[in-house]
C-alpha cells in the first residue's frame, strides 16, 4: 500500500483511540449546543442518513425508493436544520431539550489513506425540559471520515435507530 504515497501529503492514520476521540468531539459539540462547530465536522457533500424500519426486523436501505427518518445529501440541508432550531419560530425548539451522548464499542477500519470507516454504538439521553420527560434513543452509528486539507471530516454518517417509535419529536441534536 505504501508505495503510492505522495511524499507531501500529511497522512494521519486513525486508530481506535483517535476514532473514539473524534466521535466524542462530535458528541460534545451536540451536547453543548455548539452547532457551528458540529456542522464544521462535515464535508460539503456529506451524507446524513437515518433509515426507517420496513417491518419488525429490517431497515430501509434504498433511500431513493424507500422512506428514511432523515436523509440529506449535502451539508447545506443540515444547515437548514440548525437554522430552524435557532430561528425562534419553532415551538418544538423553543425550550431546548438537554442531551447527553454516550458512544461506545468504537471500531475503526482504514479504507485507504484518506478514508476511514468507524462503527460505534450510541445512547442519547434526551431530557425534554418543556415536559420534564426523559427518553433514551439508542442504536448504531456508521461514520465515514475523509481527509480534507489535512483535516478529517465526516463524509457519511448513518444512524441506525433501534427504538424508532418517536415520542413527540426527534431532532438532529438528539441522535
Amino acid at each position, binding site marked *: 500500500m505504501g508505495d503510492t504515497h505522495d511524499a507531501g501529503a500529511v497522512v494521519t492514520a486513525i486508530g481506535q483511540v483517535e476514532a473514539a476521540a473524534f466521535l466524542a468531539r462530535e458528541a460534545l459539540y451536540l451536547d453543548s449546543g455548539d452547532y457551528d462547530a458540529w456542522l464544521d465536522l462535515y464535508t460539503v*457533500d456529506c451524507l446524513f442518513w*437515518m*433509515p*426507517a*424500519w*420496513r*417491518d*419488525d426486523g429490517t431497515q*430501509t436501505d434504498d*433511500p*431513493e*425508493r*424507500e*422512506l*428514511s*427518518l*432523515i*436523509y*440529506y*445529501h*449535502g451539508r*447545506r*440541508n443540515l444547515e*437548514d*436544520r440548525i*437554522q*430552524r432550531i435557532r*430561528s425562534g*419560530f*419553532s*415551538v*418544538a*425548539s423553543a425550550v431546548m431539550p438537554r442531551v447527553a451522548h454516550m458512544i461506545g464499542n468504537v471500531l475503526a477500519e482504514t479504507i485507504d489513506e484518506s478514508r476511514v470507516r468507524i462503527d460505534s454504538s450510541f445512547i442519547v439521553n434526551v431530557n425534554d425540559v*418543556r*415536559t420534564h*420527560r426523559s427518553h433514551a434513543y439508542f442504536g448504531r452509528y456508521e461514520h465515514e471520515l475523509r481527509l480534507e486539507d489535512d483535516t478529517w471530516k465526516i463524509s457519511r454518517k448513518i444512524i441506525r435507530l433501534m427504538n*424508532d*417509535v*418517536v*415520542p*413527540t*419529536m*426527534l*431532532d438532529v441534536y438528539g*441522535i
Partner: protein
Amino acid sequence: MTKRFALRDLVDDRPQDGVFRVNRTLFRDPALFDLEMKHVFEGGWVFIGLSTQAENPNDYFTGFIGRVPIIVSRDGKGELRCFVNACPHKGVRLIQKLCGNASRHVCPYHSWTFDSAGTNRNIKWKKAGCYGAGFDEENHDLATVARFGEYRGFLFASLNPDVPTLDEHLGEARKLIDLVVDKSPEGIELVPGRVTFTYAANWKMQLENCSDQYHFTSTHPSYIRILDQRAKEQASEVVQSSIGAADFWQEDASGVTGGTFSFDHGHVLNWGVMPVSAALPEYEHAETWAALHGAAKRNWMFNMRNLTIFPNLQIAENASSQMRVIRPIAHNLTEMQTWCIAPRGESAKARSFRIRQYEDFFNPTGMATPDDTVCYEEAQTGMAEQQRPWLQGHARGLMASVPGGNDFGDMIDLKPAHSVLADAQLCDESLFGSYYRAWATRMTQALS
C-alpha cells in the same frame, strides 16, 4: 343505568344561533375516553389498512381496531379476511409480527393451529383431552370481525354489525379516495418504511389538525422560511418543495384559494388550489391524467387536499403524500402510524422527489410535524382550564358554510353535506362540526 355524560354538556351545536362549541371534557376525561374506544372505535367502521399490505396468498399484517388486536390475512385462495388476533383457547395474541407470509399460524402458548383463512386446523392432543360435549359445540376458529369491506384497496372493518354498509359510510368521500387511487392505473402503494410516533395529547388534536388550515402560517413559520430560502437558492443539493410553489396559504393571496367540504358520517376535506406545475412529482402525468380523467379531475388531483375518513384515516396530499392512521392509547396519549403513499409505476425521479419532501415535512424527525405535536401537547395541558369549559376553536367559517356543494366540487360531481369557499385568511373551522356530529352519533348509546 345512569349515564355519566350528557351530549348537551359536551357539544353545543346550535346552527340556528350560529353556535358550535366543543367542551374541553372531550379532550381530558379518561372515563369519556373509555366510552369513545367502545363506541367510536369499536362501535363502527374504522380504517385498518391497504389491500396492497397483503398482496399475495397467505400474506398478512396485524393491527388494532380500538383496543382489539386484529389480523388482516389473504387466504390461500387470494381472498382478504379480517380476524381478531387472539387464540380462542387462552386469548393469547396469535401473531406478534407486524406483517409476513404464512399458510399456518401456530399459537405460541399451546400450539393451537390456524390456517390463513382463520380456520382451526389443530388442537394439540385433542383426542386425549377428555373434553366434554360442550367443547365440540364451540367454534374454535379465529373470531371474524362483524363487518369487513374494501373500497379501491382501502380496507375498513367494524366490530359492531349494526352499521351502515361501507358504501353508505364512505358516501361522497369515495370520490376523494378516487382522486388518490386514480393517480395510477395500477393504483397506489405504501412506500417501504413505516414511521410511528406518539404524542401526549388526545387523538382529536390530530383529527382536527389535519383539516386546520388556520395553524399553518402560525405553527410552521420556521419551515416556511426555509421553503422561501430554498426557492430563492434553487441549489441542486437542497430538498425541493411543492408547497412553496402554491399560494393558497399566503395571507396576501387573492380570490378563492380553496375551502372545505364536509360529509355525513364525519368525513371532511380541506383543500387549496395548487397549480399544475413541475413543483409536484405528479407533473410527469399531467397530460396523461387530463386525457384519462378530463382536465377538471386532473386539476383536482394536483390540488392540496387533506382528507379525513372518520375516525382514524387521514390522507394528506400537500408537501408530498401521507397516509396516517390515528390510534388512541389514552385520553392524553395517541399513537400515529404514518406512511408515504404513492402511485404505483411513477418514475424513479418522481418517487425520490416525493420521498425527500415527505421526510422533511411529515416525519417526527422532520421540520414541520414536531411543531404540530408540541402544540397538541400544550393544548392538552391547557385543557385543564375549569372556569370556561367551552373551547373557542370551532367557530371560524360558521357564517360561510352553506348546505351542499359549489362550483369547484361540481367539477368532480362532488355532493357534500356542507361546503365553504375560502380566501387565504378564512381558514374554516366549521368543518370540524362534521367530526363531532359523527362522534355524537356513534356515542348516542353512551350519552344522555
